[in-house]
């Protein structure tokens, strides 16, 4: 049975967590993901879930407690955003390196200073090399769907890595959206009962986790994480296909929108992909060969799928909602450009940093990007390959 409902992104994520019914949730509130924690705590209070809810004193403790619970053998989750994720940073690495399948939503938001509470991907980009899987969601529906699938991806024996489910702060977290949620039983059956491979609370087996490792072993253990990420690409696709059977919605590593015959492509994640697709449709109606590529997985970076989807285009604009301060553009730009390098095709790849601190990406902005790409194709020249969309210059 399908239930069509109107929920905010945070409500959709909280509903997913209710249906997942994890053993332990340890969380600390932070805008704009506070609502998830707040709603979830009411589920706990009202007996809608069997979860042990731990109120901790900070996000560093939130991830630490979640990790402890996960190592003990529990299906454990937390939830965060922005400074909270930054504060959690140290422990996120530990969770990934200890191979704990923790799923945690992140409502993406800018980092201080100046103090800003609005949408930005700087928080997520801070942990892109931590070893966690990062899924991005265009809207509340995708945030909900990603949460359910994240459990299966994280707990897959070939993966065993934390998964963060990203969705845009306020734009998705607080806006009311229409979406379909699955029945509780369907979700329960899809995610299955949690039987960890090993658990500290298993009294029948001796186990020590989080041990000391010198240069004679550390390197190999890091490579094990790389191998798990490589496996995650396959698992994300497999779980996506299986999820289509219960939901009717298909998920892969990327979404290629009208790219088959496209000359120009915009690569963009999360809610801005929706705006890009809208403008793409308008320009298509005028006969322009434009398309959009939306990476759903950012870690692992689906470079094979991206190269395959972009190999026919002439010019690509990568839109980044975060800076790297390398003076070489945003984080996704570096990855996309690197992926395309070995094609040795004459594809012009440019970068637009946009929407920092919650600045709107207007439809005119997207149109301007496509116009710029058109000029690049016409002249064959790129005068500036990193640009700032909507910046007052």
């Amino acid at each position, binding site marked *: 049975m399908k239930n069509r409902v109107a929920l905010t992104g945070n409500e959709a994520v909280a509903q997913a967590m209710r249906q997942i019914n994890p053993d332990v949730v340890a969380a600390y509130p932070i805008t704009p993901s506070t609502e998830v924690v707040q709603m979830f705590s009411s589920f706990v209070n009202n007996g809608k879930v069997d979860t042990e809810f731990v109120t901790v004193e900070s996000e560093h403790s939130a991830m630490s407690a979640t990790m402890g619970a996960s190592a003990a053998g529990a299906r454990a989750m937390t939830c965060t955003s922005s400074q909270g994720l930054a504060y959690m940073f140290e422990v996120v690495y530990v969770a990934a390196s200890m*191979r704990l399948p923790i799923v945690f939503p992140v409502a993406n938001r800018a980092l201080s200073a100046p103090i800003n509470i609005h949408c930005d991907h700087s928080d997520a980009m801070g942990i892109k090399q931590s070893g966690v899987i990062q899924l991005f969601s265009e809207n509340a529906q995708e945030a909900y769907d990603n949460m359910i699938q994240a459990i299966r991806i994280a707990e897959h024996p070939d993966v065993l890595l934390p998964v963060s489910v990203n969705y845009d702060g306020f734009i998705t977290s607080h806006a009311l959206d229409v979406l379909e949620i699955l029945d509780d039983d369907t979700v329960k059956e899809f995610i299955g009962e949690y039987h960890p491979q*090993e658990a500290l609370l298993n009294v029948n087996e001796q*186990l020590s986790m989080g041990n000391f490792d010198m240069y004679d072993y550390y390197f*190999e253990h890091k490579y094990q994480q790389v191998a798990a990420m490589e496996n995650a690409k396959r698992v994300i696709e497999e779980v996506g296909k299986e999820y289509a059977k219960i939901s009717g919605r298909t998920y892969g590593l990327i979404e290629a929108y009208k790219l088959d015959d496209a000359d120009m492509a915009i690569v963009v994640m999360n809610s801005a992909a929706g705006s890009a697709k809208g403008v793409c449709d308008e320009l298509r109606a005028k006969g322009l060969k434009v398309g959009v590529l939306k990476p759903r997985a950012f870690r692992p970076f689906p470079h094979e799928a991206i190269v395959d989807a972009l190999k026919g285009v002439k010019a690509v604009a990568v839109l980044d909602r975060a800076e790297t301060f390398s003076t070489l553009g945003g984080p996704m730009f570096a990855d996309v450009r690197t992926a395309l390098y070995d094609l040795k095709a004459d594809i012009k790849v440019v970068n637009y940093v946009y929407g920092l601190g919650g600045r709107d990406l207007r439809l005119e902005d997207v149109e301007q990007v496509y116009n710029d790409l058109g000029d690049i194709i016409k002249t064959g020249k790129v005068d500036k390959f990193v640009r700032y969309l909507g910046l007052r210059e």
Partner: protein
Amino acid sequence: MTPFNRNFGQGRSREGITPDMNWRELTKAGNIYEPGNANTYETGDWRTIRPMWNEERCIHCLICWRYCPDASIFSTDGKFDGFDYKHCKGCGICANVCPTHAIDMISEDEIDEQKEARENEE
């Protein structure tokens, strides 16, 4: 006793993980599944000075045994019974506390040089 290897961490354990194992063979995330296996992991190879026992002067008071921070002194039947060079870090505490000065700290380099000289003679 198996020959001592001076390259750090090259110690072979009887069971469990060994440094010739590739990333597939090693346990996930370095998890340890057997208790007490620190014994099989050699940590003594960063020692630069080595405690040497002088039997004549030793009165078997076992003060050194009590003070060694790495439990690297063996005792049998209440008597001093040698050093565990696979784990002794060469801190010199035993030499310092010994009331009869029965322990001398000798440079590992000197020992290596002497050993080399002996081998050359042969």
